[in-house]
């Protein structure tokens, strides 16, 4: 027993494994991120997201992150693109990886409006890359200094990436196990018919059973794909499923580079021989004399606590929603950083009222004077953004009208997954008195009355007549 535990530990953590999968990962990840940053600049999104807004929604705990202005933002994005290219080439790799992680994370922390799960995934992978010896072969660093070159790395280096990617899939699949997704095929039943003009497949998208088939297949795919990829006999079919699934989502939805991130990353599940053949086409040589890369002694001592800490966080943080009452898709308490992807079609409108208790005067706020259209749309469905915006309005009105005290309330209505709208925020709550944080926010009104958890807002026609 003792012996077999020891062997398992060795296979997963310390056994030497060829470095090739890590090299493929480095090249594709760096290359894709370089393209991503360039795409951002070329499409004019730098201006639209970081220069045009007057007000930026902060991430809790990162209020000190500020936009850098027109030139500054382009400089930041150039830095992201250049450091990503250096990661790809393995040039001054450690420094490039640190710069890429910091600059990418900084740009994503500027405005909460732009939060996407796949940017979070990129941040995590970029963070892990800092510590991995991905430049120890087939890189400019190894060419400059042949002494750096290694042919094998400890197995945990490869398993770390597999585990991170598998975790994302499993959590995403787990999040799909909710009544709307499984029993109402929502939100796919809203999104798919919009693609009814497709050749061949178009007419199918209008069929309700297709939305159900996609929903259930998507949930099963996410929950089990890491295991199919791990098992050798099923691996080629599983990878085919990865490619088809992500290309389909790419064509159906506006999800940017995410499909490519996943199609490239899941290659890590393939054995080293596969990677050696693949990279061989561009001149990679596995090396005849095995050289094992060993981490510095200090790193080896820290490895176990660091891994436990990192993955402990990764496993527990997405589960924090369990501590909040109500529906996480509605109230969004514990929603972010939890791999809830493509789960909601949510629209809302929020009208803010500023009240001056000294004169008794009230005013309705014109959101468009302070927010971009995209910010307004995102703000109206996310309680912490509503609160942050109210606090900003408090400062603005104090300054603009020279008021001593201000009360701010909101009329906010949100419609979720094809239902009619419901009031989202307590209209009597003075938002200037409330604070953001991880505590439960009782001023977010519940989605359903007690006992009506599956009400849809749409009653079947026969019942009504």
């Amino acid at each position, binding site marked *: 027993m003792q012996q077999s535990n020891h062997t398992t530990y060795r296979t997963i953590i310390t056994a030497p494994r060829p470095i090739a999968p890590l090299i493929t990962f480095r090249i594709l990840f760096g290359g894709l991120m370089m393209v991503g940053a360039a795409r951002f600049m070329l499409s004019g999104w730098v201006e639209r997201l970081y220069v045009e807004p007057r007000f930026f929604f902060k991430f809790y705990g990162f209020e000190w992150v500020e936009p850098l202005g027109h030139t500054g933002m382009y400089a930041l994005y150039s830095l992201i693109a250049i450091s990503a290219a250096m990661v790809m080439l393995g040039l001054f790799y450690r420094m490039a990886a640190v710069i890429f992680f910091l600059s990418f994370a900084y740009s994503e922390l500027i405005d909460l409006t732009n939060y996407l799960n796949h940017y979070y995934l990129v941040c995590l992978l970029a963070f892990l890359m800092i510590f991995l010896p991905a430049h120890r072969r087939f890189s400019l660093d190894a060419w400059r200094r042949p002494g750096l070159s290694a042919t094998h790395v400890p197995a945990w280096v490869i398993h770390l990436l597999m585990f991170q990617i598998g975790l994302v899939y499993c959590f995403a699949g787990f999040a799909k196990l909710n009544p709307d997704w499984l029993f109402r095929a929502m939100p796919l039943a809203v999104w798919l018919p919009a693609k009814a003009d497709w050749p061949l497949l178009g007419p199918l998208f209008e069929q309700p059973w297709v939305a159900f088939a996609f929903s259930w297949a998507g949930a099963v795919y996410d929950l089990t794909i890491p295991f199919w990829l791990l098992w050798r006999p099923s691996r080629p079919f599983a990878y085919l499923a990865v490619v088809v699934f992500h290309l389909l989502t790419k064509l159906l939805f506006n999800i940017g580079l995410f499909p490519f991130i996943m199609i490239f990353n899941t290659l890590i599940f393939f054995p080293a021989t596969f990677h050696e053949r693949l990279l061989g086409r561009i001149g990679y040589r596995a090396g005849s004399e095995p050289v094992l890369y060993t981490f510095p002694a200090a790193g080896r001592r820290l490895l176990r606590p660091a891994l436990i800490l990192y993955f402990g966080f990764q496993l527990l943080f997405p589960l924090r929603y369990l501590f909040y009452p109500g529906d996480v898709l509605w109230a969004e308490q514990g929603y972010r950083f939890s791999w809830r992807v*493509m789960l909601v079609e949510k*629209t809302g*409108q929020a009208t803010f009222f*500023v009240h001056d208790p000294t004169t008794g005067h009230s*005013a309705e*706020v014109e959101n468009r004077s302070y927010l971009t*259209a*995209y910010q307004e749309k995102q703000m109206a469905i996310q309680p912490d953004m509503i609160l942050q915006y109210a606090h900003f309005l408090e400062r603005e009105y104090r300054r603009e009208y020279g008021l001593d005290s201000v009360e701010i309330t909101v009329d906010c209505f949100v419609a979720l997954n094809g239902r*009619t*709208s419901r009031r989202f925020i307590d209209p009597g709550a003075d938002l200037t008195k409330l604070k953001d944080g991880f505590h439960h926010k009782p001023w977010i009104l519940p989605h359903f009355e007690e006992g009506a958890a599956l009400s849809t807002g749409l009653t079947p026609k026969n019942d009504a007549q």
Partner: protein
Amino acid sequence: MLINNLNEHYEIIKRDKIGIPSGVTTLGITFPEKVEAYYSGRSLALAEAALKAAEGLYLGRNSQSGADGPGLDDYLQEVNATKEGQNLSSLIKTQFQKALDALSLVQAPLSGAIEGNNERVVNAYNEITRQLVNIKTDMPSVLCVSITYVDNASDSD
């Protein structure tokens, strides 16, 4: 497209034709001179016509005969949408009527009403506003239409 433009049009009535002049956005400081077509004194008639146009579009009203034809109300009837137990289709129809009634209580010219009896103007504004959630959030949601005149920058996930 239709629903998007209806909403854009409706928000202009709410904000520009009534809201801004009556001071609802400015802590009670009114701007009677900011009404539409101030010097001609026709602002109220224009606002009413715009509201009627929105209602007509919703009901599918024939502009010559004035009879209701197939319109957005029939779509809502077809999917049998309800909001808080009420039929959404007729809820919107009733709200259009309430808004028009409230607006008819305002005496022309609008700028004069704002200076003299702004309460009625604000009341009309509130009735007009009450409709917005129905046509901008509920109707698109149950008809599976996405509001796109607020443009969609960037990706989603």
